[in-house]
């Protein structure tokens, strides 16, 4: 089966132009197997395929298409379609000659250097890159497990979960209460829960103006808090209430039948609820022994090679990368550093210190965006922030409008960089 699928993938994946431009495939080419076709996995596949080391690149991803979590709050606001956030793997296969296998990786054998696939068969690798994203710590809130997500969505992986949340918001009566449970650190997309509150408020303001949004936080502070609170006061006065853990005593349990959320003190009833659970590295990282006791994967800050298993690199949200936030931009930045490190190792050339960078555009309203810019570099065995800049409270409307237009342009360029 492996042979057939790989053979098929190669034939399907190789356009005539790519065949003409590339040296013939030979048994001597290094094999890199990438597990997970999110932002990190797709980026590393593309940059390895275009590196001068020219390894044979295989990308293992069950889904046929990828819907970005970033910008999915604009879909919840009703201003962007989910289709506009959905990308295929066709360009990676056709233009870059990447062998895309739509299957799930079940196990990794770090000694034999093989990856087993759900449908059967194994892929041998010289280097593996694991980019499984996040998994949820369902035990952390009593009553909230995988089955409960079909009633109360987390909507923290974009797709059906996001659609379910949008449908619930659409059918909510005016005057209802939307409760968001925000997770403890570290988690995917630090501004995400608060951007979600902002953009759902934008939707409510137009269609259900008597409704309220309540954020029950597992934390006592949050990312860009001053920018959010200023934005909420300006755009949605009185609509959004944020309760820190020190006020509620934290979220204890959820009852899906009554849509009620019990904290250390009060119990809150929701018309629509969104529980964003505590997170750890994706399942395969756990089962392959790539995660430590924190639940995340320790890596070498120069190469993103696992500190637990040699020849396996971990990138994206699953990696424990010092000060690097868990964002799509960081996943892309790490993936490039990892691709260049693998290419250097395969070619036996000199290792260079990676440039690591993050920027996030965050919407307070569709025409009011803020951004951050963070420089990071390997330091003392970890990755440290060297410079950090934020938008400021009190910037002009025009500055914020410009940032929202830049954000749209960024989305276009970024997804092109990732998916070709």
């Amino acid at each position, binding site marked *: 089966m492996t042979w057939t699928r790989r053979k098929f993938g190669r034939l399907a994946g190789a356009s005539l132009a790519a065949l003409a431009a590339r040296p013939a495939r030979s048994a001597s080419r290094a094999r890199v197997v990438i597990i997970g076709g999110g932002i990190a996995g797709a980026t590393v596949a593309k940059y390895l395929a275009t590196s*001068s080391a020219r390894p044979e690149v295989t990308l293992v991803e069950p889904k046929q298409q990828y819907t970005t979590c970033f910008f999915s709050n604009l879909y919840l606001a009703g201003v962007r379609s989910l289709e506009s956030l959905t990308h295929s793997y066709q360009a990676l296969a056709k233009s870059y000659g990447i062998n895309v296998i739509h299957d799930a990786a079940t196990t990794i054998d770090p000694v034999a250097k093989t990856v087993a696939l759900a449908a059967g068969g194994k892929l041998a690798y010289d280097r593996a890159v694991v980019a499984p994203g996040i998994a949820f710590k369902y035990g952390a809130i009593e009553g909230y497990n995988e089955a409960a997500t079909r009633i109360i969505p987390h909507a923290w992986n974009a797709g059906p979960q996001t659609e379910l949340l949008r449908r619930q918001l659409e059918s909510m009566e005016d005057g209802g209460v939307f409760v968001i449970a925000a997770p403890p650190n570290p988690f995917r997309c630090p501004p995400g829960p608060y951007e979600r509150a902002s953009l759902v408020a934008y939707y409510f303001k137009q269609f259900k103006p008597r409704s309220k949004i309540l954020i029950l936080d597992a934390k006592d502070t949050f990312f860009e808090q001053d920018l959010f609170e200023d934005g909420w006061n300006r755009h949605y006065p009185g609509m959004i209430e944020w309760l820190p853990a020190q006020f509620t005593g934290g979220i204890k349990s959820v009852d899906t039948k009554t849509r009620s959320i019990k904290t250390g003190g009060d119990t809150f009833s929701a018309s629509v609820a969104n529980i964003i659970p505590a997170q750890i590295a994706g399942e395969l990282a756990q089962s392959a022994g790539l995660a430590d006791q924190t639940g995340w994967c320790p890596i070498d800050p120069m190469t993103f090679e696992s500190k637990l298993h040699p020849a396996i690199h971990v990138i994206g949200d699953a990696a424990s990368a010092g000060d690097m936030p868990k964002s799509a931009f960081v996943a892309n*930045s790490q993936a490039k550093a990892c691709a260049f490190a693998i290419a250097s190792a395969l070619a036996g050339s000199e290792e260079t210190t990676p*440039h690591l960078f993050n920027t996030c555009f965050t919407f307070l309203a569709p025409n009011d965006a803020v951004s*951050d*810019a963070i420089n990071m570099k390997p330091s003392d065995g970890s990755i440290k922030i060297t410079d950090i800049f934020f938008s400021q409270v009190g910037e002009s409307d025009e500055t914020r409008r410009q940032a929202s237009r830049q954000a749209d342009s*960024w989305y*276009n*360029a*970024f997804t*092109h960089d990732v998916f070709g």
Partner: protein
Amino acid sequence: MPTSLLMALIIAAAFFVLNAGAAAAADNERAAELAAMCASCHRLDGRDRGLPSIIGMDKQTFIAAMAGFKSGTRSSSIMHAVALQLSDAEIATLAAYLGALTGEGKR
């Protein structure tokens, strides 16, 4: 000139050319790695919609723009951060590499 010396010179010259070629390829690889950082926001095929295209620019214009972002005379916190990461040599490398892109490449 003895044949052996001539042969040695030819071999040395060939070696030099090959080495220079390898060095140029390595430089180009390094430039492409730096440009990859830019590609997270700016399309290297020139098809940007809103953010400025950065390919095919005159070298000195590019270098002056980056100097402005680094010093803060041009305002953009994102580009200020990017410019702070790059040495003058890296900015010059990027100016040459991006300046030579025509938008017909795959990236």
